[in-house]
C-alpha cells in the first residue's frame, strides 16, 4: 500500500507531466472522479470522426477514416477468379489488415504487431456475418467467373480503437466501390476499354456499366473501456494501455446486434454494464451513419 499513498502526497508537489508518467492509473482515476478525461472529453464521448472517399486513385474503391488521430486507409481491388464448386454463383471477399511499422512505435519491421491478426479476424467475421455484402452479386458468369474482392486496410496511425476505425474505413470503401466494366473474350474476362464500348459487339458484355454494390445492413462499432464502475467510450492508445478491459459492440444500421467482443480483461462486466455499452453504441451508430452518408453525398456532388 506504500506506493499509492506516496503518490497521493507527491501529487501536490509534482509537475503534472511527471505525475502522468509515473502514476498513470492514479492520474486517470483523478480525472474519472471528475467525470472528465485528460483530452477534455466526457466519458461517453467519442473523438472527432471523419471519412474521405476515394483516397487511392489506383483502387476500385477506397476510403480514409480518422477517429481522433487513429487513421485507417482502406482500398479495394477487384480481380477475376473461378468460383469454387460448392458455391458456383458466388464471389469472394478477402480482408487483410496491416499494421506497417510507420503506425506505432511498438511495431518494428519484420515483427508483425500482435494486434493485427486479432483485428483482421474480427473484421472478416463481422463483415461476413453482418450480411452487408451479397456474394451472389459478385458473380460474373455462373460457375465460370466471379469477382474476387481484395480489401486491404492499412493502419497509418495507431491511437486506440483500431477495430472501430478499421471497420469504418472498410464500410466506407465498400460504399465507394465501383465494379469495373468487363466483357467475355475467349472464355477469359477482359477489361472493356472506354473508347470501344459501343463498337465491340462480338464480345459478350458481362458487366455493361460501372455499378455500385448494394449494401445490406451496414455494421458500425464502438469500443469501450470498463474500469471499476466507469465506462469510457472510444479509448486512446494511452487509455488502452493503462486500463485493459475492452468491450467492442457491433450493431448494424437497424440497431441489430452483429457481434460483441469482450476478450477477457481484469474487470468482470455485469450485464448492466454490457447494456450500457450497447446503449452507447446505439448513439454512436447514429453519428457514424450520418458521417458516412455525408461522405457519400459529398462524393456525388463532385
Amino acid at each position: 500500500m506504500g506506493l499509492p499513498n506516496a503518490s497521493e502526497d507527491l501529487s501536490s508537489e509534482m509537475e503534472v507531466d511527471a505525475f502522468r508518467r509515473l502514476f498513470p492509473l492514479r492520474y486517470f482515476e483523478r480525472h474519472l472522479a471528475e467525470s472528465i478525461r485528460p483530452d477534455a472529453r466526457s466519458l461517453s464521448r467519442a473523438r472527432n470522426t471523419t471519412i474521405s472517399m476515394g483516397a487511392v486513385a489506383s483502387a476500385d474503391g477506397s476510403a480514409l477514416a480518422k477517429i481522433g488521430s487513429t487513421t485507417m486507409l482502406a482500398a479495394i481491388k477487384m480481380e477475376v477468379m473461378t468460383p469454387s464448386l460448392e458455391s458456383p454463383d458466388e464471389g469472394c471477399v478477402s480482408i487483410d489488415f496491416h499494421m506497417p511499422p510507420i503506425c506505432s512505435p511498438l511495431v518494428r519491421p519484420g515483427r508483425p504487431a500482435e494486434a493485427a491478426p486479432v483485428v483482421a479476424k474480427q473484421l472478416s467475421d463481422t463483415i461476413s456475418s453482418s450480411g452487408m455484402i451479397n456474394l451472389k452479386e459478385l458473380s460474373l458468369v455462373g460457375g465460370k467467373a466471379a469477382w474476387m474482392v481484395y480489401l486491404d486496410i492499412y493502419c497509418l496511425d495507431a491511437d486506440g480503437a483500431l477495430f472501430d476505425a478499421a471497420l469504418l474505413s472498410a464500410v466506407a470503401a465498400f460504399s465507394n466501390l465501383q465494379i469495373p466494366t468487363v466483357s467475355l473474350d475467349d472464355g477469359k474476362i477482359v477489361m472493356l476499354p472506354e473508347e470501344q464500348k459501343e463498337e465491340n459487339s462480338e464480345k459478350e458484355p458481362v458487366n455493361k456499366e460501372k455499378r455500385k454494390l448494394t449494401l445490406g445492413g451496414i455494421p458500425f462499432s464502438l469500443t469501450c473501456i470498463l474500469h471499476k464502475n466507469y465506462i469510457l467510450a472510444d479509448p486512446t492508445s494511452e487509455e488502452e494501455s493503462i486500463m485493459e478491459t475492452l468491450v467492442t459492440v457491433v450493431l448494424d444500421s437497424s440497431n441489430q446486434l452483429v457481434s460483441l467482443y469482450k476478450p477477457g480483461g481484469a474487470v468482470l462486466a455485469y450485464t448492466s454494464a454490457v447494456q450500457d455499452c450497447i446503449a452507447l453504441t446505439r448513439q454512436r451508430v447514429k453519428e457514424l451513419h450520418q458521417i458516412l452518408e455525408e461522405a457519400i453525398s459529398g462524393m456525388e456532388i463532385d
Partner: protein
Amino acid sequence: MAAKPSTTTTAKATYSPIDPTRKTRPPIFSGSDVDWLRPDSRGFHQCRPAFFRTGAVNSASGSAYAEFGNTKVIVSVFGPRESKKAMMYSNIGRLNCNVSYTTFATPIRGQGSDHKDFSSMLHKALEGAIILETFPKTTVDVFALVLESGGSIRFLVKQVDELDTLWFAVGDLPVVISCASVALADAGIMMYDLVASVSVSCLGKNLLIDPVLEEESYQDGSLMIACMPSRYEVTQLTVTGEWSTPHFNEAMQLCLDASAKLGKIMRSCLKEAASDEQE
C-alpha cells in the same frame, strides 16, 4: 468455421481483367521524336508538383507526407531510442531504414512486402547527412510506406512477370528520400542539411526529369541523385543503363538544379509548420 469465404479461397488463382488492346506495347518513342507529350502532359524538363506536410503520424517522433503527382508516401521517424539488444556498443548513433509498399500501390495488386533494395538505398542516402554523434548508443528508425506508386493510372502493366523488372526501377525512391529527410527534420534529428533527391531517365536522345513508372519502363538509362542543396554535396548517386558523357553531364546538372528547387520547397514546408506551432 463453415462460413469463412475470406481465408479459405485466397490461394485460388485470380487475375486482373487486363485491357487486351494493351498487350502489344505501343511505340512510345520513335528515333529523334522530340514533340512527344509525356503521359501526364509535362515538359521533358518539368518535375511533378511536389507537396510536403509534416506531422502525418501523431504517435511518431516526427513524420511527413509527400505527394508528387500520383506518388504518395508517408515516412515516420521513431527515436532516438534504445538499440536492439543484439547490437554491439557504438559510440555514435545508428540509423535504421525500412521501405514498404501497400498492396494497392502498384497497378496490379502486389504482395505489399518490405522493399529491401530501397531500404538500404534510403539508408545510404541519408547516412551522410545525419549527425550521428548527437545520439550515441541509440537508434533512429526511419520507416517509409509507399501508399501509391507513381505512374498514370490508365497504364496497366501487361504481364505480371514483367512487373519484377519494373519493381526495381528507381521509381518512388527519390520521393521517399526527400520525404524521409523532412520527417527527420520534423523529429528534431540533427542534420548537416536536408537531403533532396531527383531522378532523370534517358530515352533515346531525350532526358526526362522525374519520370513516372510508365516512362521508366521504356528508359535506356536512369540517374538518381540525392544531395544536400545548401552544401552542394552529393550523398548518393546511382547510375544505371546506357549513358553518353555529354548526356550524363547534362543529366547531372539537371538533377542538381531540380534538387536545389526541391530543397526550397521542403524548407518552406518545415518553416510553415514551425510558424504554425508558434502561433
